C-alpha cells in the first residue's frame, strides 16, 4: 500500500492537506476533497481512521521523532528515552523530521499505519491541534516532549524556555546592562517563540527600550551565529549584553568578536542557551541556560510506558525548569554554586 507522501505527490497537495482531508474533511474545499479521495481510491490507499490500538500484538518498540538528529540537546533527550526503553526491553525507532512539519506528518503516518510501534514520543512537535486530535483518535500512546499540552488528555513534558531567557535577561539587567540584544533561531518551533517572549517580558518589566538592530534572527547553528555576529558588527554600535538562543551560535559569536578584538564580557556580555558540553571549555567560559534534556527524555519515556502498561494514571503534564549556569561571559564573576 502507498504511503501518505506518495498520495501527496500524486495529487500535487501537501502531506498536511492530505492529512486534513482524511481527518477533517470539512476543513478542505469540496473540490480538493474530491480530487484527493479519487487519487486515494486509484492508488488503493486506505487511511486507517478507525480507533484501534497501535500494534495489535506488542511490538516491544517505541518511536522517537526528533526535529534534528544532529542537535546535541536532542541527542541527550534521545539518550534519556533509550535508557528507560532499554530497561523495559524495548527498541527505539529513531525518526528525523528535519524541523519540517511535512516530514513529521509523514513519519507519523508510516508509524501509525504500519502499526510498528507501541507508542510514540514527539520531540518539539510542529503538529497543529487538529493533527494532534486525530492522532489521539488512533489510540496510540503518545508523549509530547518539549512542548506544552495544547489539547486535553495528552501526556506532555515541557521545558519553561520562556522562564529561561527571562531569567537570563533579568540577570543581565541586575548586573547593570541596559542595552540588550537577542539572537534568535529562525524557526516556527514553540521553543523559539518562548525563548523570545521571555526575553521581551524581562525587558518590558524594566521599561528598557529595545533597539531593533540588536534583534537578529538566523539559523540555529554555528553558521547562523557567525552571520548574526557579522550583521551586529556592521551596525553603528553594539549592545552591552547579548542573549543567544543556542550555544553553537553563541560560541560562533564569541569567536567572531574575538577576531575583531572585542572583549567579552568587558565590551559585550554574552549568555547562550543549551549548556552544550564544550561551552565551558572556551575562554571566556560561556554563561549559558541549561535545560534538562536528559531528564526530559527520562520523564517522557516514563510517561509513555505508564500509558503503554496501562498504569491507569490520568495523562500528565510535567513541566521542567531551566537553570542559569553562571560562568564568565556574562560578567558576573565566577560563581560556585
Amino acid at each position, binding site marked *: 500500500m502507498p504511503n501518505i507522501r506518495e498520495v501527496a505527490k500524486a495529487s500535487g497537495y501537501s502531506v498536511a492537506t492530505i492529512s486534513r482531508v482524511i481527518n477533517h474533511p470539512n476543513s478542505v474545499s469540496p473540490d480538493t476533497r474530491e480530487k484527493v479521495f479519487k487519487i486515494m481510491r486509484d492508488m488503493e490507499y486506505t487511511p486507517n481512521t478507525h480507533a484501534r490500538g497501535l500494534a495489535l500484538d506488542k511490538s516491544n518498540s517505541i518511536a522517537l521523532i526528533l526535529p534534528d538528529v544532529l542537535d546535541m540537546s536532542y541527542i541527550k533527550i534521545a539518550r534519556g528515552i533509550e535508557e528507560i526503553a532499554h530497561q523495559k526491553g524495548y527498541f527505539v525507532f529513531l525518526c528525523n523530521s528535519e524541523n519540517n512539519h511535512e516530514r513529521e506528518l509523514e513519519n507519523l503516518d508510516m508509524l501509525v499505519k504500519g502499526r510498528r510501534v507501541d507508542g510514540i514520543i514527539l520531540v518539539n512537535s510542529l503538529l497543529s491541534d487538529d493533527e494532534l486530535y486525530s492522532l489521539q483518535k488512533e489510540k496510540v500512546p503518545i508523549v509530547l516532549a518539549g512542548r506544552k499540552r495544547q489539547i486535553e488528555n495528552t501526556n506532555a513534558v515541557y521545558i519553561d524556555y520562556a522562564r529561561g531567557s527571562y531569567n537570563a535577561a533579568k540577570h543581565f539587567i541586575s548586573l547593570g546592562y541596559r542595552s540588550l540584544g537577542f539572537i534568535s533561531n529562525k524557526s516556527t518551533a514553540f521553543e523559539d517563540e518562548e525563548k523570545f517572549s521571555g526575553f521581551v517580558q524581562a525587558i518590558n518589566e524594566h521599561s528598557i527600550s529595545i533597539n531593533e538592530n540588536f534583534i537578529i534572527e538566523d539559523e540555529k547553528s554555528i553558521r547562523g551565529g557567525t552571520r548574526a555576529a557579522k550583521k551586529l558588527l556592521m551596525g553603528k554600535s553594539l549592545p552591552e549584553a547579548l542573549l543567544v538562543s543556542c550555544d553553537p551560535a553563541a560560541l560562533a559569536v564569541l569567536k567572531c568578536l574575538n577576531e575583531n578584538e572585542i572583549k567579552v564580557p568587558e565590551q559585550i556580555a554574552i549568555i547562550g542557551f543549551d549548556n552544550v558540553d564544550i561551552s565551558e571549555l572556551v575562554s571566556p567560559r560561556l554563561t549559558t541556560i541549561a535545560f534538562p534534556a536528559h531528564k526530559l527524555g527520562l520523564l517522557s519515556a516514563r510517561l509513555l510506558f505508564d500509558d503503554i502498561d496501562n498504569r491507569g494514571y490520568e495523562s500528565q503534564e510535567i513541566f521542567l525548569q531551566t537553570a542559569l549556569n553562571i560562568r564568565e561571559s556574562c560578567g558576573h564573576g565566577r560563581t*560556585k*554554586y
Partner: protein
Amino acid sequence: MAELKTQYAGLELENPLIVSAGPWSRDTSTISKALESGASAVVTASIVSEPSPTHCPRLFYKEYSLSNIRLYSELTLEDWKKTIGETRNNGGTIIASIMGESPSELAYLAESVESFGANAIEIGAAAPFGEGLEIKCSDPEFVFNYTEAVTTAVKIPVAVKLSATVTNPVACARAAERGGASGISGIDSVRAFAGIDIETATPYLPSLGGLSGSSVRPVSMAIISMISEAVGIPVCGIGGISRFSHAVEYFMLGAQSVQIGSSILTNGYSNIGIILEELTAWLDNHNYRSIQELKGIVSKRISPFQDLRSDPLAAEFKTDCHKSDCMHCRNACTYDAISFTEGKINLNRNMCSGCGMCINVCPEKLISMSWYQKG
C-alpha cells in the same frame, strides 16, 4: 516504662527515632540496617527523576562537622520500585523523600513512589548546593504550590522538609501546612565550605557543599523552636543528633520526633539502639510517662529578644582559685572584672556586666551567677 509512640507524616510510629535521607538510607540493605537497629521508620535518600553523578571524595569530617557534596539518591526511580517493595515486604515503614524542580514533576514522583508502596512522602524542599543563586524554597508561595500539587496527587500522607537556607521558616512551614502537609521536618544540611589544607593550598572539597552533624544542631533548634509554635501538624527535628539528650532538647522545643543522619557515619547504626535505650531510661528516671509530656515544655521559656527582661546578675566564685596556669576566666572577661593578684583570682562584682562567659570556660566549674545590685 515510658510510652514512646508518636506521629510524623501522618504515620503512627513505635518510637520517635527516624533515620533521615542520606547515604545511610540509600538502598534496601542500608534501610534494613537502619530498621533493625531500632529506627521506627526510614526516610529514603532523595528520589529524583535524574540521579546526578557522584564525586570522589564527597565527604569531609573534622571537629564534629561533616561536609558533603552528595546530591540525592544514586538509584533510578525504577530501582526504587524494588527497594521500596522489598522494605515493605520486610514489614518496614518507609518514607520516600522526593525532590524535583516543579510542582508537576514532584506530583509525578509522588504518584510513582505511592504506587511502589511507600507509607508516606517527605518533600525535600531544597539542597543547599547545586541550586544556583536563588534558593527556590525560600519562597512560601513556591512551597505552597509544590506541597499542594503532591497532596492532591496522592492518598498517602505528605511531610515537607525545610531548608535552613530560608529567611522565613515560619512562613514556609505555614505554606506547607496550608498545602495539606501532615508533618514538617527540618533541617537539611546547611550551605557551607569544608575548609582548606593550607600546606598544599587545596580545598578539602572542590565545591561548596552541605554542613551537617553537631555544628548544625543549634541552627536547626532555632528553626524548630520557631515553627513548632506556628503550625498544628507534627514537627520532626533533624540536625546533629548523636545522643538521646539531643533528641530530648528537640522534644522540649516542640518536636514530636527526630531524624538521625550524619552520626550514623561516625557512630554506626547501632548507636540508634543505644539512643533509644538511654532515652527510655531517662524518661523513666524523670517520671515522664511519654515523650508527648516533653513536647514544647521549654518553648514558653524562650522569648523574643525585644521582650527579654532580665535580672541584675553578676558572677560569683564558689571558692578561691589559685591556678596561675589557667586564666581562662580572666581571658574571657572583656570587662576587666577578673584579675589575678596576690596569688589568686579576684573578681570585682561592680565591674562585672553579667555576660556569663567566664562560667562557660572554667574547667573546674568554680563560677556561677547570682543576684547582684550594683552599688
